[in-house]
């Protein structure tokens, strides 16, 4: 599952595709917009195909591969040109980059489709990874001093192998002090349908996560996956006074924006 080979990153492109993900689309649209604008700020054109819906991970993770495959096929068709595909989510990014090959690797998929899935997977990048490794952004922090914790989401760190990039982006912001969180790399308990189907376990996990984040003393919690943020944010809100929770792109946009 972990990509064994180190990723070879392309040179800065003129144009990229943006895949917003269904969660960002419906719950964190402003963060999606921020992610797009921060790419454009670097002089890169962003194409957002309006036909996009979801990467297909929910049915795939539930074992319904046929259903996932049909949706996946429709998504791939929307990104035909060889531009990088930027995704503001480690989980959806991993679905594209790691699992499409499995989804289209079986004996019942055409060879041409297998090749298409591989070609597509190879140009998918998670947003923070893309900003750090491909665009190599340099930012100037315009915000007031703030204490921030970063939650490394599971698929981002373990399936995509992206551990440094989000921190590297945050470290560029001079007003930001990073607050470590105990057992930071442990899963928050979201897990898609797991959060609902295994509610007691999921809630026990996220309660612990929320408590450890509060103990870390941050004023803001950022992450690269909307699912985790919904989950952790939801638990923090129940626990009382809590840090603000928002996607990394949106946080950065607020800090580097020229008033």
């Amino acid at each position, binding site marked *: *599952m*972990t990509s064994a080979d180190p990723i070879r990153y392309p040179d800065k492109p003129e144009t990229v595709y943006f895949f*917003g993900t*269904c969660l960002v*689309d*419906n*719950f*964190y*649209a*402003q963060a*999606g*917009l921020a992610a*797009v604008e921060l790419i454009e700020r670097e002089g890169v*054109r962003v*194409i*957002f*195909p*309006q*036909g*996009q*819906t*979801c990467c297909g991970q*929910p*049915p795939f*993770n*539930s*074992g*319904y*591969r046929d*259903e996932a495959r*049909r949706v996946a*096929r*429709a998504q791939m068709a929307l990104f035909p040109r060889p531009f990088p595909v930027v995704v503001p989510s480690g989980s959806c990014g991993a679905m594209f980059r790691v*699992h499409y090959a*499995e989804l289209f690797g079986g004996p019942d998929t055409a060879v041409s489709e297998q090749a298409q899935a591989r070609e597509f997977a190879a140009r998918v990048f998670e947003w923070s990874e893309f900003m750090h490794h491909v665009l190599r952004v340099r930012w100037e922090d315009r915000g007031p001093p703030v204490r921030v914790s970063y939650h490394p989401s*599971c*698929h981002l760190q*373990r*399936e995509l192998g992206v551990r440094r990039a989000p921190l590297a982006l945050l470290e560029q912001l001079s007003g930001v002090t990073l607050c470590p969180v105990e057992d930071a790399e*442990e*899963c928050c308990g*979201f897990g898609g349908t*797991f*959060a*609902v*189907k*295994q*509610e*007691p*376990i*999921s*809630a*026990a*996990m*996220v309660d612990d996560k929320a408590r450890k984040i509060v103990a870390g003393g941050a004023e803001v919690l950022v992450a690269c996956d909307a699912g985790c943020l*919904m989950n952790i*944010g*939801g638990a923090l*809100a*129940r626990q009382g006074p809590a840090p603000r929770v928002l996607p990394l792109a949106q946080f950065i946009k607020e800090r580097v924006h020229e008033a």
Partner: protein
Amino acid sequence: MKPDAGRFKVDAARATLNATLRQNLNHTLGLIRARRDAAFEALTAPEELQEIGQAIKQESLARLPELLERLEDRLTARGIQVHWAETADEANAIVLEIARRRGVQLVVKGKTMVSEETELNRFLQRHGIEVLEADLGEYIVQLAQQPPSHIVAPAIHMNRREIADLFHEKLGEPYTVDIEAMTAMARRVLREKFKTAGMGVTGVNFAIAETGTLCLVENEGNGRMCTTAPPVHVAMMGLEKVVANLSDLPTLNRLLTRSATGQAISTYFNWISSPRRRGEKDGPEEVHVVILDNGRSSVYSDGELRDTLACLRCGACLNICPVYARIGGHAYRAVYMGPIGKILTPQLAGLETAGHLTGASTLCGACAEVCPVKIPIPDLLLRLRQEGSQPTAAGRALFGPGAGSQRKPAEAMLWKGWQVLHDRPAYYRAATALARAAAALLPRRAASLSPWGRRRELPVPARASLHALLRNRPGA
């Protein structure tokens, strides 16, 4: 003990609310993880070692039938008797037969998960033979009349006060929470048993085909006692425990003990290659090996799921698992719990019985990262979820991935509907707009009625979707 979807939900929920259990597990799992991490960090290129371990096990699995025959041949040549068992019942019957022939009344046992799998203790006791667990953790859970809650540390769910109560009540010893004193009590009791036991039963960590050698890894000395003091030693092993070469041992053992306890090597690494030879003054007169299938050969026939059989039973995946840490081992109602249990149990017991365990995972991947032989546990969970979503076909095998199904028609319909909405952009946009509007109208308090909202606030839907915000962009 049988996995059961309904009971799992109840047991798991109850366990998450058991403050003592959570505290016990937080303490012990935290310690054990730190020890494991330190042991790997002390190495140069630890990941490479994991890759080599993986290669060794895969190579041995690829040659499994040949290696088993060779193992049998070597063991037999030196007087170790080899038995083959297709099922748990067969394995138990073999052990009983040996015990009867030798007139055994008391069996002492080293730690063996295979004997848990066959429920040997219950079986022998039903036939009038006393069985005593000699590993301290196993001894504790046996006294408590519980199954082990962890494959390496059977009593990890109990704290010293609970164990003190148990010893006080069951052994009639003066109450003490002093761990050394409690260990000494167990030593005293078991010592007498070692002297009189007619049979020692143990597991096998590695069986070397090249030389016909059974290797046991342990710290306490109970395994050495069980293989030395009684006149008969019976070693029970899953058929996947065979490895090809003697030269594979250093790597595999390095990985096993570091992953299990953070030790560079266990206190005892015990290699057995024959029964007592002429002139030798101790050691068992008879050594038997029971090679158990119990569904493994069926797992083996699937090129992807076969990776499950590479497992060293180190327990590292349990220790890192966020789900295991919240519910403990008993909630699984399975001999193998935690991440390895979630892939192994449904394959051995069938998906209909145990398929629900594959759902008790966020697919966070922490297990695959620490696994010393790099078993891709999340990928195998996904594969089993897929198998489980298929309708049951006639004529499927008794064991293995094809055994039964956990398909629920309503769920299948739901995913079909999901697909229809998501492969047609217009449907998707209309449906999500509707859902966002509806959610905005919903009173906040209603949220707590949904499973999500019981202990979490619902997320607030975006007023305008990203689709809408970007409608006027190029490529739209």
